């Protein structure tokens, strides 16, 4: 399944961040850092995405949106929490409206620290995410094979 790790598509959502990490995520796509040369494309459609970049500490109103985007993404999928707010709430962790970290809502695979996270760190996080993506793909393949075997056996009994 090389295609998935050679050209991962990502979706970015601002889960109540200050914008700092969001513009750094966008800066990754532009000529200075240019992740598109690795086949990474920023898509706006959750159904096209393999990697979910979430920034910000997620407030109450944003919980369903983050969950919805995560659920819409096809498996295997990887979540990268970008910036310290997404990791733990950061400077906002004492705010009344903040749940403090994306991992309270959806499972997170890679944590990228920094305020704001630097583009180099974000790219590094995405690359780490690729490892997780490959593993998940293998697990998924095993599950699918086992299911297929079980189905065939069941058919034989019939």
């Amino acid at each position, binding site marked *: 399944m090389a295609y998935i790790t050679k050209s991962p598509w990502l979706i970015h*959502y*601002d889960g*109540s*961040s*200050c*914008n*700092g*990490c*969001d*513009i*750094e995520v*966008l*800066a990754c796509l*532009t*000529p*200075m850092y240019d992740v598109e040369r690795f086949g990474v494309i920023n898509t*706006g*459609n*959750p159904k096209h995405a393999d990697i979910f970049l979430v920034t*910000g*500490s997620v*407030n109450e*109103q*944003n919980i369903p*949106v983050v969950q919805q*985007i995560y659920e819409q993404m096809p498996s295997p999928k990887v979540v990268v929490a970008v910036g310290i707010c997404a990791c733990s709430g950061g*400077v*906002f962790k*004492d*705010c*009344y*409206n*903040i749940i403090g970290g994306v991992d309270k809502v959806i499972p997170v695979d890679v944590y990228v620290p920094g*305020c*704001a996270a*630097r583009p180099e760190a974000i790219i590094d996080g995405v690359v780490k995410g690729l490892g997780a993506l490959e593993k998940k793909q293998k697990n998924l393949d095993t599950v699918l094979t086992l299911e297929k075997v079980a189905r065939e056996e069941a058919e034989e009994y019939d």
Partner: protein
Amino acid sequence: MAKRTIIPFGPQHPVLPEPIHLDLVMEDETVVEAIPSIGFIHRGLEKLVEKNEWPEMVYVIERVCGICSFGHGWGYCKTIEGNMGVEVPPRAEYLRTIWAELGRIHSHLLWLGLTADGFGFESLFMHTWKIRETILDIFEETTGGRVIFSICKVGGVRKDISNEKLSEISEIIGNLKVELSELTDVFLNDVSVKNRLVGVGVMTKEEAVEFGAVGPTARASGVDNDVRRDGHGAYGELSFVPIVEAEGDCYARCKVRIREIFQSMNLIRQAVKQIPCGAVSVVVKGNPSGEYVGRMEQPRGEAYYYSKGSGTKFLERIRVRTPTAANIPALVHLLPGCDLADVPMLVLTIDPCISCTER
């Protein structure tokens, strides 16, 4: 009458870097009503004054927004300095002005890029953001951060820029001017770009005043409104004329921002020429106890900072009103009557900064 349909726009939408939700009531292809709902970024950081001491609040207020982060830090420091009657050394005021104007260039370039992406001109977006990196490099060299700096503190700034470095910055800005003129030529004269911008979303001067629009959005409709003229920072000693356009359409808003980039470059070069020598900060003793209102011209318009001290290390109240909060009513008024395909353009041309608005 055609059948009415409601189309949800956002919170997650390709042209929106930040979540805002609009319910667009449509009749065929025309918007008849736009109902905004916000609150996706509300963190409630004004409440943090109860948990953070006032010198530490600078870090929180800077994170109101990652794009005009320097301006917010400055605005907060300004209201506390006013509250306590602190005299900031002139060199610090000049340095703040230079950083604020660099911030304006970076913010407007960011906006130009997003707009180019919004009307589907991907390569223009890439070029604009490439130029923006030069400004971010200057920030990184002088403050250590690319988007969040924490360089401003109550009583001055944390770090000086040497005079050699300042003249180097002035030179870089001069070179950038040439590079940028090629780019802005495309924004202002390209036929396909003009097709998307000219005559779209016209806001008259009266409407801009009535809805309380601020910043480039208001100036593009002929409202001569620029807080920098009150002479805070070093602006009193620099010569500039606010940029005003009369048409009030998306093209005028784009033109105002482009001209402001060049104006900021000019202001930086003036400031570098005139900057006095001396200290960059003073020691601040005691705690704020009064009330003070400070106004700032952020890249998106007038921002308003209020602080009320309690005589202790914790402030009683801090209030920030940001420019986008003032521009959203104007946007909601602009949307009815436009085509669905123009909605992203209209939303973008007020340069919405949602994390500012909701704090």
